[in-house]
């Protein structure tokens, strides 16, 4: 197992390097937006770009980029967005908001999703199952920003239960204060509905299938109660499929949601990547690309390892 993990990690870094090289070269082939400012000296902007090394050959730029990242963890500064601000520092300032909102939504969504899924599976084809399945379809079909607007209008504006926007740190005192948490609830709910629905659907489907397995009959005939059979055998088998989905959700919390963050005034990373592409900010694009690539690759490894942990029959890297 250890050898397998080491091999996967080494392969991950190789893949990361290849993607980084390709991304760097391809994005640098795109010219920066033309400078057009009436009555202004565009040479000042060109001088800034020169100072940032943008006129050097691409391979020289790549060498300097790699050197700065590896030796000083310096991802450069913004040029087209957050001009002059350290890219990594901007990301790290914004990431906690995204992580917290998404984390809360998942922590709330997992028990609810599993609970509804198990309940629906146990009540399969009864009215409770039909009700849950119908609601699941509704919540999966409707995009999260629709809930966001509805939640904001009814819970925040009409009823005044929550603030319209996330509280500022100045007001809330800290990211982990109750005031901050309560101001996150509308966004957490908006993000959570979809996750609850997804988990419910998966859990119900998997558990329904498992419950009809021969070994479940065997478990009951050997004397286990229904609850024992479900918790010890059915759920564990069903989790082989469900757990990677949950892990995937956790990985996804770093991605953020552009629309939800915009609606609730969350200064997270949701818009960073797309904006960096739109405005062609090389440094932000590279930092964000590498960050998400790393997360994606790492999540693949974690997912694969998780199979082995849930189901002992799966042996990672075993040749037998």
């Amino acid at each position, binding site marked *: 197992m250890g050898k397998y993990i080491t091999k996967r990690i080494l392969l991950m870094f190789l893949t990361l390097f290849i993607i980084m090289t390709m991304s760097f070269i391809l994005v640098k082939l795109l010219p920066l937006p033309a400078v057009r400012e009436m009555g202004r*000296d565009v040479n000042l902007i060109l001088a800034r770009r020169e100072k940032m090394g943008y006129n050097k050959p691409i391979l020289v730029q790549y060498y300097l980029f790699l050197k700065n990242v590896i030796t000083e963890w310096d991802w450069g500064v913004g040029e087209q967005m957050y001009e002059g601000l350290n890219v990594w520092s901007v990301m790290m300032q914004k990431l906690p908001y995204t992580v917290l909102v998404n984390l809360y939504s998942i922590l709330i969504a997992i028990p609810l999703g599993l609970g509804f899924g198990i309940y629906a599976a146990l009540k399969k084809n009864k009215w409770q199952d039909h009700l849950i399945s119908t609601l699941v379809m509704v919540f999966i079909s409707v995009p999260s920003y629709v809930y966001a607007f509805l939640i904001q209008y009814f819970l925040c504006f009409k009823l005044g239960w929550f603030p319209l926007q996330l509280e500022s740190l100045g007001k809330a005192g800290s990211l982990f204060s109750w005031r901050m948490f309560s101001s996150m609830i509308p966004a957490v709910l908006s993000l959570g509905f979809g996750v609850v629905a997804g988990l419910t659907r998966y859990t119900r489907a998997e558990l329904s299938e498992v419950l009809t397995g021969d070994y479940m009959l065997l478990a009951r005939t050997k004397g286990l109660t229904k609850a024992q059979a479900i918790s010890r055998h059915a759920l564990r088998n069903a989790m082989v499929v469900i757990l990677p989905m949950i892990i995937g959700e956790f990985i996804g919390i770093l991605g953020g949601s552009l629309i939800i963050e915009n609606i609730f005034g969350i200064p997270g990373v949701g818009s960073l990547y797309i904006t960096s592409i739109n405005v062609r900010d090389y440094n932000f694009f590279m930092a964000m690309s590498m960050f998400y690539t790393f997360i994606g690759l790492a999540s693949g490894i974690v997912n694969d390892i998780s199979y082995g942990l849930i189901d002992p029959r799966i042996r990672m890297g075993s040749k037998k």
Partner: protein
Amino acid sequence: MKKLLALVLALCMVTGVASALAEGFELAASYEPGERVFDGGEITTVKAGGGTGSEMTTDVYPGVEGKDYTDEKVYTFNDYTAELTASTNWDPLSWETADDSAILDYISTGFYSFAMNTDKSGYSVVNELAAETAKDVTSEYVGKFGVAEGETGKAWRIALNKDISFDDGTKVNAYDFEYSIQQLLNPKIMNRRADSYYAGSFVIYNAKNYLYAGKTAYDLIADSAANLIAAGTDVYLDMSFWGLVGAADENGNAAPQYVNIADDTKYRDAAVEEGKDEAWVSAKYLYGTYLADGMPYASYASQYLYTASVAPETKWEDVGFKVIDDYTIDFILQNPVEEASFYIPYNLSSSYLVKKDLYESCKKFWDADGKEVATEEEASSITTNYGRTLETTVSYGPYKLTSFELDKEYTLERNDEWYGYRDGKHKGQYQTDVIKVTVINEHKTAMMAFEKGEIDGIALASEDMEKYGTSKYVKYGPNNGYTTKLSFNTNYEKLASRGTNSQVLVIDEFRQAFSYCYDRKEFATAYTAAGTAGFGLINELYCYNPFTGAYYRQNDYAKAGLLKVFDVKYGEGEDYATLDEAYAAMTGYDMPKAQELMKVAYDKAVEAKVYDGQSPIEIEFRVYQSDEIYVKMFTYLNEHLQEACKGSGFEGKVSLKMTADADYYQTNYSGGADMIFTTWGGATMSPFTILYECYCDASDGSGQQMEYGYDTSKITVKYVVDGNEISDTLQNWALWADASAPVESIESKLGKFTDYDYDTRCAFYSQMEAAFLSWYPTTAVYYRNTASMDSQKVQSGSDTYVTLVGFGGIQFMTYNYDDAAWADYIANNQLVY
């Protein structure tokens, strides 16, 4: 049955003949629109008075009588910004965006400011960092700094306010201003705002040389390129001519701004598909193919070809800035400032002050390889984080920054060290104690926050107008002079290459018909928050006389110019008795006329073989995005265009196609769009510069001009000036009015544009505007305006918009409730607007 067969046969024959005709049709290789001569009419000139111009008023609105502006209560103005990435740089020397300047406006003060006059009808000049009006001391510098004997208006002495201090109480004197301007022009920093003192009309002598000392500077050619080459001088092409600055060569090296025209290094033109002609082009190719004598764009050579010179090593002593004593400084300029009583305060309405010890501590030094070094002397470049965080920010304005959360919120509080709270000149102003600005990206959220009383002002969108359009709380104002127009591509080759028959756009009558086919008033009402019907290039906000604040659009000459464009007649025997009646009645909408013009356009297009008379015509309309409002605007225009085609050969054949393109301006600049919405505005005190800078600087889109293919160097405008006929190209006339470069052909006969009084300038200029519009390369749709509401908590200084002052801003804002009373009020009342 036989009849039916005969009918089918006849139909087949007709179709066959038609298709045979179509198959035999050969599109014209080129299209020449014919000679374009515009009659500018007779002008009787009046010379300007010269000197410093009229005196500016200095009376200032004293505030609400009986109101206590200094009580102990707390008044907070809760504002918001919709920008996704809010302010990140409020360094006075290098700020970038409008949001950056929003913070800077509160934490800095200009040498002079413009404030609402007593009766709120206009603006007055107020001394701020300057203690008094600038004095012309040019005579003291004769023989130095390029000042010749007898010259005036080149050196200006500013006596400084002795009570200026930073927010920590540190006093400011003339040497702080000197240090700050030295840093602004520091060649190792290359501050973004350095050009404030050399790129505009207020040019400090040798400022640019100091900034670029020892580096290569590029200047526009002063002789023909051929002569320069023959004399062995290197000539450089500004690669923005073809939109290629930063484009990669085959080795991945980016194209610099200026490339020698002998250089054959090819750069990838991203606007052209790989494998097609001109996908890879060099400076040598572009010069030889387009800009050399006899080539299609030879007339633009003087705007895109440069000679290079190394900027001379310039010592600070040679820069036109002098400290006279602790509280007196001199600006010595390259060009004289005329009508200085307005233009000195106008040019010095901002400032550039930094705090020396903090600024020095914010510097980082780098060598040529990008390695950090210890001292400025060792460094080849310097970066700074001054004005990027709370800790690196210092104020010398009425407010100071007290909290900042990136992309979330910032707060400014009263800066008690600001001289204005003690000098007696700002009484009845600045009741606001705290300004809190929150980032709210979604308009609907901002609207809810406003209705809950959480923010104190809101910009209304078109969808809000039904609900709030008639509210007494709504304020209407111009949007910085912007006019939204439809701009057409009239480059035949570019249009024909698309294969959609959009080349019919080259027919003048087609575009003219388009201009008449939509109702501007209806359009503005339906699709904009507060826009009004637009007719000219220059909108209602532009002032042509800074001393009176008179609006260009209200000038009789300007009105007459537009009536000429839209063919509205007045006078004896005409539809309207007077100019004002005719102007008030002008709509620019005449569907029958549009339909008649379409018939003419059809015949002309077929005759000139730019159209086969049969095929469908698809005109691609590129827009920024395809959201609901754009779709509605597009649908309106498409339906009206098709209505205009009825009864002509174009009927049922013409359609618009909407394409969303976030880079639609860039696409348009390279001729890649058939038509787009274009918008120009800004610099509302300078209407006479907009025609040249926005509409006449390059017909191929490589400059600022968006009417691709419309070449103003091929339009002749003739005036009879004081009885003498004078003709020149529209491009030259516009440059003459712009006054940014000499136009020998006109100046030899008329002198400078600024030699004439403001009405005479309008007489000339209105005809230039009319000349540009007369062949319909663009047609105005609406003048942009803003509609906004103040909350019931606050009261703007003025209910109506005042030039240069707006509604009075935070300076003149007063409060109906303090924070505590407002919190109580909104907790117990439903706000109704």
